[in-house]
């Protein structure tokens, strides 16, 4: 296979808002606007942004849990977005998802063993013996004792449940896992365990991750490349080290400055941007960040800045900074 494992081209998702028959001009939520990126095999691409920026919608589009309004999602060269249901089924094996909430994303009536072998059971007949071997193997992979397979999710801790979620995703040996805020609901000590597990799995199996998070510390730790989203668009896409060392887009800069630092000698309580994220129903004209941006000039109010390569090769969508 040549080319990237996953390639996303000009992905767009609009949700219609209400449909009143008297409404001549139906409003839409512009959840995702013109998003393009690619993921190489064995790589971790992080998508970071605040609530409502469209990062979870991107995850759902990648898995085709929702159909895109426009654009293509190419997995190993095949456009997932245009496949029919029957054809899609086979492609689903190569792409799996881990969800945020380890409580509501596991069926409370199934045992741990049933939960994690269910995906494999959808594709091949699994006898009891085979199922148990597979369950034990998967549990071992995610650092759980095989005895756990007979327990119900309610008998397990949050960290153990999230390990089950990961084991379930691994069950079909996918080449890529989409993790949507997979560690956000966990306490930091457990979060560290899960991050280590994900990185170990990547090292062992060469699996790729699309890791969606709002936590910059986590993103910096686990990511190879990072896409920063704001109101449905990618505003900056760069190598992890480069992005955190020197953010170029003013929004990226603000995000990094806003994150509290666990060191009182460092603490400065900065308020890098005033105001709040505008509604995606009626986004600002031009660059959607311009009403909050300290650098905004006239052009930002009119023209949407394209995502263009900056000096070090990273992509930035900013009229002011991209050319500097």
């Amino acid at each position: 296979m040549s080319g990237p494992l996953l390639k996303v081209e000009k992905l767009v998702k609009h949700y219609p808002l209400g449909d009143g028959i008297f409404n001549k001009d139906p409003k839409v939520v512009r959840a995702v606007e013109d998003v393009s990126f690619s993921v190489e095999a064995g790589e971790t691409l992080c998508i970071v942004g605040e609530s409502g920026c469209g990062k979870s919608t991107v995850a759902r589009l990648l898995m085709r849990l929702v159909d895109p309004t426009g654009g293509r999602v190419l997995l190993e060269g095949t456009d997932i977005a245009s496949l029919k249901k029957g054809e899609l089924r086979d492609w689903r094996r190569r792409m799996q998802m881990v969800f945020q909430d380890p409580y509501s994303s596991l069926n409370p009536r199934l045992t741990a063993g049933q939960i994690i072998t269910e995906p494999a059971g959808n594709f091949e007949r699994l006898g009891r013996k085979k199922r148990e071997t597979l369950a034990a193997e998967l549990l071992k992979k995610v650092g759980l004792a095989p005895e756990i397979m007979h327990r119900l999710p309610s008998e397990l801790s949050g960290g153990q449940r999230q390990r089950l979620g990961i084991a379930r995703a691994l069950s079909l040996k996918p080449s890529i896992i989409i993790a949507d805020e997979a560690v956000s609901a966990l306490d930091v000590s457990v979060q560290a365990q899960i991050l280590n597990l994900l990185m170990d799995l990547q090292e062992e199996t060469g699996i790729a991750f699309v890791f969606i998070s709002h936590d910059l510390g986590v993103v910096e730790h686990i990511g190879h490349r990072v896409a920063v989203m704001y109101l449905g668009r990618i505003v900056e896409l760069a190598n992890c080290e480069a992005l955190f060392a020197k953010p170029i887009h003013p929004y990226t800069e603000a995000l990094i400055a806003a994150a509290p630092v666990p060191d009182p000698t460092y603490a400065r309580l900065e308020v890098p941007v005033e105001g709040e994220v505008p509604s995606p129903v009626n986004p600002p004209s031009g660059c959607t960040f311009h009403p909050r941006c300290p650098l905004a000039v006239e052009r930002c109010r009119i023209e949407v800045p394209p995502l263009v390569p900056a000096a070090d090769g990273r992509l930035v969508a900013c009229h002011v900074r991209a050319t500097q």
Partner: protein
Amino acid sequence: MLMRVSSEERIIENFREDKTIDNDVLLDVRDLETHFFGEESVTRALGGVSFQVKKGETLGVVGESGCGKSVTALSIMRLLPKMSAKTVGGEVCFHGRNLLDLPEREMRKIRGNKIAMIFQDPMTSLNPVYTVGRQIAEAVEIHSGASRSDALSKAAEMLRLVRIADPERRVNNYPYEMSGGMRQRVMIAMALACSPELLIADEPTTALDVTIQAQILRLIVDLKKRTGTAVMFITHDLGVVAETCQRVIVMYAGRIVEQATVTDLFSRPVHPYTKALMRSVPDRRRGKEHRLPEIPGIVPSLREPIVGCSFAQRCPFATEVCREKSPVLEEYGADHAVACWHAKEVVSA
């Protein structure tokens, strides 16, 4: 709403007459023990918690979920669910009187007036069917006896204080018409409307985005400076503690394991749990490590009484004594206390 001013003033006078208390200490919590009663089991959510909040300071309470930080706040405010939870031991001294012994009528005059609280979720803690102005005004009317119109203009003034633009118009808004950050500002306005002496903030920025969180933290710190209100800041985020607090208590499994000034805690953590907690947060200044140091194991169940140190099962320093006897919070240097049998070894390790 029919509370009379005179009775309220009398109570405050009673408080002022009590001269036996340390002038610096605003709230003195001693051996607080709170249990939750299930059908078959008792969860010992707080197993003897003691600390003080000094006048005008910001005290951080930090710990992971289930460590008892919110239960501490609810026990102080006496807002625990009546059917299932009960504070079974200890005292909460405020102006020399034990809040736990006050009749509910008198507690109501303190709650929202002398001690106010803001919660994590600004949507569910505001009443959706009243305008925000009315909700702020309600507290003012009850506690100061002001007229409806005076209270409403006070509400607008409070909204200006929390930097909501166009406050005269905003008082007529309903909570659903506001964003999350704005609703949290309203909560703060409501809490501060009666000039409380203590504000308990339970994860006030956890539900907010980082750029909004930065704005709200700044606001809380600024208002604290202006009003002199002491703040008890409950959070799971060590970064938030570092940026806002002067002193910190670290909780684990219903007990306080360490207490120190914020600079001391971060530069010289003593308890093995505090140390491990700090290391498990990804931190760019440590350089990129492949593996994050994790804390092995899980938090012990609070349904069984914990014998010995609650962290012993997960602690690399644990010995026989840790599993048998519970360590008490002891002074370890100036303004620093720790509950660990092996504090000296941990520090030198």
